[in-house]
């Protein structure tokens, strides 16, 4: 994403100057997982999410203005990969988790 491209599809400007932006395939990185990755880094950075031609664009700005931009980029990419992996785990185990909790709490009702 170039410097002149931090506008949303609707043409509204984003509210800050961003340190960097990345464009993600919405097919590979579901919106929910991108949000979770951004949430996990919210202590260190501010984010603005946008949509462009079917992609999710993540704009990022470090809260500590002295922070390393490359370290922040690496952290965001790691977080995105981690949350994608978590999604793969959840997809295989969500049903079991629900049965597990229901079974355990049903047992807890018995004497």
């Amino acid at each position, binding site marked *: *994403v170039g410097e002149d491209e931090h506008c949303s599809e609707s043409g509204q400007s984003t509210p800050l100057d961003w340190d960097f932006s990345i464009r993600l*395939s919405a097919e590979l990185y579901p919106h929910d997982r991108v949000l979770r990755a951004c*949430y*996990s880094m919210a202590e260190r950075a501010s984010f603005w999410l946008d949509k462009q031609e079917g992609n999710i664009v993540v704009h990022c700005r470090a809260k500590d203005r002295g922070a390393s931009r490359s370290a922040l*980029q690496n952290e965001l990419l790691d977080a995105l*990969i981690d949350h994608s*992996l978590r*999604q793969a785990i959840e997809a*295989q185990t969500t049903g079991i988790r629900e049965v597990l909790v229901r079974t355990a*709490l049903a047992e807890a009702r018995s004497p």
Partner: protein
Amino acid sequence: MQLADTQAPERRPIFEEASKFEGARPYRLLPFRFTRLPGSERLLLVSEVGEHIFLPRPELEALVAGRLGPEHPAFLDLEAKQFLTKTDDSAAVRLLAAKYRTRKSFLRGGPSLHIFVVTLRCDHSCAYCQVSRQISTKHEFDMSDAVARAAVDRLFEAPAPVLTVEFQGGEPLLNFERIKSITDDVSEPAAATRRSVRFTIVSTLHHLDEEMLRFFKHHNFHISTSLDGPAWLHDRNRPAPGGAAAARTLEGVRRVRDALGHEAVAALTTITRESLAHPEAIVDAYVESGFSSIFLRPMSPYGFAVRSARRTAYRMNDFVEFYRRALDHILRLARTGVAIQEAYASILLTHILTPFPTGYVDLRSPAGAGLGALVYNYEGGVYASDEARMLAEMGDDTFRLGDVRQRYAELMSSPAMAVLMNAGVAESLPGCADCAFLPFCGGDPIHTYGQQGDPVGHRAKSDHCRRHTGLFQLLFDYLADGDPETLRILTSWATPWSQAPMSLQ
């Protein structure tokens, strides 16, 4: 704006769809979470019921993709700890459910910790005091007999078979007559209904006399006091009339040990900004005073601590660094045969290394406030926790369940409990739901509300989250490192000793 990174690194799917492997997988995954540990090549995997294993990243990806072969060295461990199953789901779920039920067994029986605030009077003037103390001659801040009797009635309406009755203040010994009447009113019906009761008191011990000691011995009290480290630091943190606060507390400790036994008294340390530079000296002061345990507690954002925050507050990251140094020192001492442990690490390690919950009500999901503990204030208010009472003293009644004259069922179905239930299940909280430490931790909606004005809050702004993430990372660093002597020491701390309900105030 500086430029922009470009596209995401890869176009192809990172992890194949689960359906692609149906029928071909040699195993099925069971629920777990994972996290990176700073400075480690290996990831920490934690199962839904709290089993853990360390695994390099490629092996985790192979595990999730169904490609980890049974010949892999970690495969048997993953199977034994139920990260995967080769057998049918129903057997695995039954076994996991039994473990889950054990880990959540604190849910049975309702509130078992009942805190009686018998007076707000106190003669100390600690800058970090969480309570709205009153001067020691204002008897209108004492709990009346009528309030005490109604509170005891509520206590027996709660169904818990094991009860802890904790006396707090102010300085509770300034209203010793009320402590006596409540203890007597609880002891007899408890015996008649075959309920087990443990009595505890949180006191400076400055007002201790022989009659009190005889009473405490008769009822097998456990005594908790505050000692902030070396005398110079304690006396600065906890000014008392006549000075020498540390010496007078230590004299009280000696008398309790003589009368009730050495282990009948424990102490906790509130860490002030001034304490941060002296972790080793604080631990050494505990060793010199004959304590086998120290509890390092950060300041809480309540009561007088709010007013003095500008000169006493510090960042939670500074506390975690302080804690790391203190724990390093404790482990060094332990390796030389000095028997001292850190009480909070002991609780966390019990959560990590055993299948059991502890009696510690502030680290549970659903939250222990209200479900695990009730606080009866001197004036008759019933609160979900001590922090809820402190908020009320600051003018915010959000977590006031009601009055001691209301029935238990009414208190437990109060709007305040509804707020706690909505915000107190960590499994459904943003950030917590993805956290690998979740099975050992818990949300703290009242603390979060006190800090952020919202019981759910944002993890990025949460001191509760910063503190516990930092502490869990530290402990797992030790466990991952695998030094046999360190593991022996930490494992010895992880015992179900702490299953009796407690507040660690």
